[in-house]
């Protein structure tokens, strides 16, 4: 009797992913699909694709998918969920989509306690457009639009989304995870599963922030990116649970 590890989950379509080598998007896609499989909800799930490197998620997930304008995924997800309350609705967004242009939609969906799950890929840079500053770019970090390193005096300060949303009533789960090693990948999957379960229990808005890499635009190998993430991103964006109504009890 054999145990097989690494098979593509059913909710992830059998298509080659277009992401760069070592991009952690691939890991997170697989985790979301595994959770959808384990919960058996692919038939009643609707995913909302955002704009960024992950714009093609509608080609990768097997559930029904709708494409949203840049930043608007939480609003589109709200429309879907209010029209189909029994559907499991999730967004998959990068740092520009969720925290720059979409910050208003994010905060208000959270405040409404909208029963959706936001998978938030935080890699401190704008990938698809070629490596510009993101709201989560670190002070001193060199990007295409901060060629001398991000100077908070002129370019502003990075935003810690989980911390920000943890103050919003309506948020059921705000948890920051990462996927730099198997142990953390397992923990990330647990968080994603909890988020989906909370939605199915009607607990409110859930966000799982995944501290991620962008080897291409960070200008380093995938292996080095993992180390850069540990050395630079995790100290600024500490992993942890920032809000969990399941643990704390309903407000």
């Amino acid at each position, binding site marked *: *009797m*054999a*145990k*097989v*590890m*690494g*098979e*593509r989950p059913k909710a*992830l379509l059998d298509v*080659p*992913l277009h*992401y*760069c*080598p*070592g*991009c*952690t*998007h*691939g*890991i997170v*896609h*697989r985790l979301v699909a595994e959770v959808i499989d384990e919960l058996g909800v692919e038939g009643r799930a609707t995913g909302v694709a955002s704009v960024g490197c992950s714009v093609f998620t509608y080609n990768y997930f097997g559930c029904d998918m709708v494409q949203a304008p840049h930043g608007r995924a939480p609003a589109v997800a709200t429309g879907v969920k209010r029209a189909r309350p029994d559907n499991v609705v999730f967004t998959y967004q990068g740092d520009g989509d969720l925290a720059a242009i979409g910050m208003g939609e994010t905060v208000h969906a959270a405040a409404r306690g909208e029963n959706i799950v936001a998978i938030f890929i935080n890699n401190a840079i704008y990938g698809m457009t070629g490596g510009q500053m993101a709201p989560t770019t670190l002070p001193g970090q060199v990007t295409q639009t901060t060629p001398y390193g991000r100077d908070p005096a002129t370019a502003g300060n990075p935003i810690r989304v989980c911390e920000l949303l943890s103050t919003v009533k309506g948020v059921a789960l705000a948890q920051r995870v990462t*996927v730099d*090693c*198997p142990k953390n*990948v*397992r923990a990330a999957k647990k968080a994603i599963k909890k988020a989906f379960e909370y939605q199915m229990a009607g607990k409110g808005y859930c966000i799982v922030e995944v501290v991620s890499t962008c*080897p291409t635009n960070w200008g380093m*190998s*995938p*292996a080095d990116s*993992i180390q850069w993430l540990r050395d630079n991103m995790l100290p600024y964006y500490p992993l942890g649970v920032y809000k969990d109504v399941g643990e704390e009890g309903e407000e």
Partner: protein
Amino acid sequence: MPKVTVDNDRCKGCEMCVIACPKEILELDHSITNSKGYHPAHVTDAGKCIGCGSCTIMCPDCAIIVEVERCPRRYS
């Protein structure tokens, strides 16, 4: 013995599996170049594989599969 299979066409040679392997038995095979121009990963010493599946957990492309015979005493 655990069996490791790499999908040479899906592998992007990113080395996530290489750095994840606790036995350090994964490396890129520079003698193979796939249709996208990548060198896929391969096992250098199959005998040392402990079937932990760390490589499968870290692969972003579902390009590596590990099959492990379950111990009949425990899992029957």
